[in-house]
């Protein structure tokens, strides 16, 4: 089922065109990743999709009643607003204590309900954001650099949670990340951005595309192969691991 479709989408921010002529769509159940260098318009595109930036031209169509769970790139909490985690989870829709406890433990932070938001560490904060997104039982989960401030094992663990959530809720996931190989390996489809869509397709197609290699070089390939996702059964390298072993391998590292 098609959740969201952008057609000829062109976005402007502060009088500058940050993204032009984007055609893209997201279907239920798929994980789509946006990659691109800094300033390539990844966050702008997400803001355009959720309606936070009005399109200069083109349009965004969403499924009727589409519920979006959004984890923004950064959420500055300066402590002026007193807010416990459980109060935060109830914005904008209130939830029962049980539902909140379930979401928090699903996100891996079961003991934080009464903590103040501004006292959380970076990792705890992102997990609370994830819990909030989960509580909306989203059709589409959007993660904008959600692993910023997490170390590599923390980020890998976070993405494992996301995959679990995707299976569990049967939602689509749209991610932006700098952790190229980890994220791309976990994706069904990758869009490579640089002010427009340079190239798109499965992770394999994108990593071999000249546009992608022009932006990121070929250096990422080795690491990418290690983190290959288990639902991809085409092996370009000549390891003789069987699939089970490869699964194990992935869980150890990713």
């Amino acid at each position, binding site marked *: 089922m098609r959740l969201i479709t952008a057609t000829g989408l062109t976005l402007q921010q502060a009088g500058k065109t940050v993204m032009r002529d984007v055609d893209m769509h997201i279907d239920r159940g798929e994980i789509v990743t946006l990659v691109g260098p800094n300033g390539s318009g990844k966050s702008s595109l997400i803001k355009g999709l*959720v309606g936070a930036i009005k399109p200069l031209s083109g349009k965004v169509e969403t499924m009727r009643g589409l519920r979006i769970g959004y984890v*923004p790139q950064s959420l500055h909490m300066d402590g002026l*607003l*007193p807010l416990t985690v459980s109060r935060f989870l109830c914005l*904008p829709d209130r939830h029962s204590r049980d539902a909140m406890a379930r979401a928090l433990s699903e996100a891996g932070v079961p003991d934080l309900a009464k903590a103040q938001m501004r006292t959380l560490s970076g990792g705890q904060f992102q997990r609370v954001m994830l819990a909030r997104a989960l509580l*909306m039982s989203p059709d589409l989960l959007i993660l904008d650099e959600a692993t910023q401030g997490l170390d590599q094992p923390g980020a890998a663990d976070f993405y494992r949670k996301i995959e679990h959530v995707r299976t569990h809720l049967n939602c689509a996931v749209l991610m932006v990340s700098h952790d190229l190989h980890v994220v791309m390996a976990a994706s069904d489809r990758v869009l490579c951005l640089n002010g427009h869509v340079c190239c798109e397709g499965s992770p394999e197609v994108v990593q071999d595309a000249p546009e992608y290699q022009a932006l990121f070089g070929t250096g990422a390939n080795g690491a990418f192969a290690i983190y290959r996702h288990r639902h991809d059964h085409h092996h370009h390298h000549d390891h003789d691991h069987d699939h089970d072993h490869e699964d194990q391998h992935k869980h150890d590292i990713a």
Partner: protein
Amino acid sequence: MTLLDDFLVRAGLAGIGTALAAAPLGCFVVWRRMAYFGDATAHAALLGVALSLAFQGPIMLGVLATALIMAILVQNLSGRGLAEDTLLGVLAHSALAIGLVAVSFLSGARLDLMGYLFGDILAVNVFDLALIWGGAAAVIALLAWRWQRLLTATLNPDLAQASGISFRAEQMVLTIALALTVAVAIKAVGALLIGALLIIPPAAARPLARTPEAMALITAAIGSGAAIAGLGASFQFDTPTGPTIVCVAAGLFCASTMLARLRA
């Protein structure tokens, strides 16, 4: 109505009504760093007074209209070149100056300028009281209705937008609430000190609160307490009432800040 015949009772009720209107809005002013925005809007109230007197209309209506126009003006001019605090500074002081000049065109007998600059809470009549409490009820009802949306938009505009909440629409709710509050508060504390009533009680409440709702309630208690105590003190020491109320609020702010330091 015998109780309301006592001017001190009327003054006390006016003070409490004003504090209750200012409490939830003041919290948003603090959370969203809108202090200058509040000042600019409040200062425009004086121009509203002058216009009302010139056209012999009801004062509160003139104040409401100019405050609303000023607030919308500020909102639309912000983010266009000049730094926001500079722009708001220009507008706040210009509004006050234009108001003072406009007032000077009116013949002195009709106007007690000090009363509009610093409030004249002891002269509140039953009709004023009805307007103050009606206005306060409107502000509180408006904010209570939009509470969840306003809080979400305050956290992060994009987060709000993803949940289908328009940041601009919620901004407009606050703008309307601000104009209403200014119109309500001008009688009690005057154009110059409305900003103080918006900022100081929530600032005093902040260290004592763990949730937004608790902060709004504590703010209301601190504001009402300051109004009553300030009224009593001004009666005792024969000082101007509006400024005395603000002094008491400032004292409560110092006390709560020190309390927070001691606990930390």
